[in-house]
């Protein structure tokens, strides 16, 4: 289980290969990459700035990965999350999970994203032609999390 919080971009292909090649008992690698979109709520996005609560962030993500490992028979997991100022087409987050068989990795990756979205202390502020604004949390994310009860 690895967690990186960083301002720099990351090499998704390199990270996925490392995770996959770590063991020949791995049969499945499921990953999610989040990217900054150019539009949100009808406005063109110039930049997206991510703030976080450093002392809490890693603890929250470790707890989520641990919970995923308890719930499903996974081999390893990786979370990379960027902070700082990004622009459209930039990568924001990578979550990747390995397992022997695909079902476990799919569920665990989906679960980690839902819990990261609702429980990890990151906040997004975007700049549009209208100025700056904080991104509102989405009800859909809370609903997505409810699936795992």
């Amino acid at each position, binding site marked *: 289980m690895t967690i990186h919080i960083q301002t720099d971009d990351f090499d998704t292909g390199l990270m996925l290969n490392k995770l996959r090649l770590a063991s020949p008992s791995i049969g499945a690698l499921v990953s999610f990459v989040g990217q900054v979109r150019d539009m949100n709520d009808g406005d063109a996005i110039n930049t997206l700035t991510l703030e976080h609560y450093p002392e809490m962030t890693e603890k929250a993500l470790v707890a989520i990965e641990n919970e995923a490992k308890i719930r499903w028979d996974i081999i390893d997991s990786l979370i990379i999350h960027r902070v700082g100022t990004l622009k459209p087409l930039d990568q924001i*987050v990578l979550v990747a999970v390995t397992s022997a068989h695909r079902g476990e990795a799919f569920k665990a990756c989906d679960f980690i994203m839902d819990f990261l*979205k609702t429980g990890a*202390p*990151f*906040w997004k502020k975007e700049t549009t032609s209208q100025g700056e604004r904080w991104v509102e949390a989405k009800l859909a994310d809370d609903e997505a999390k409810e699936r795992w009860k």
Partner: protein
Amino acid sequence: MIIKILYFARIKEAVSYSTEEVDLPADVSTITALKNYLSLRGDTWASLFNGKQVVRAAINHALVDDLAVIQAADEVAFFPPVTGG
């Protein structure tokens, strides 16, 4: 008791603090009580904690609900619902 309070995102901007140390009266021992106590600082604070917008809290880096008990030397954080990922 002395605790540390951190503010993030929209809330940090509203109160113009990112962190402070406060010496709480003995009866301010839950998140709800702390919110009420801070609301006495004026309109900005009162409107922040009046329940019209969701303010989440963490104690020592763990998300908690408003009934959670605060102890001396705790690090309490207030922030809006998270929007990472």
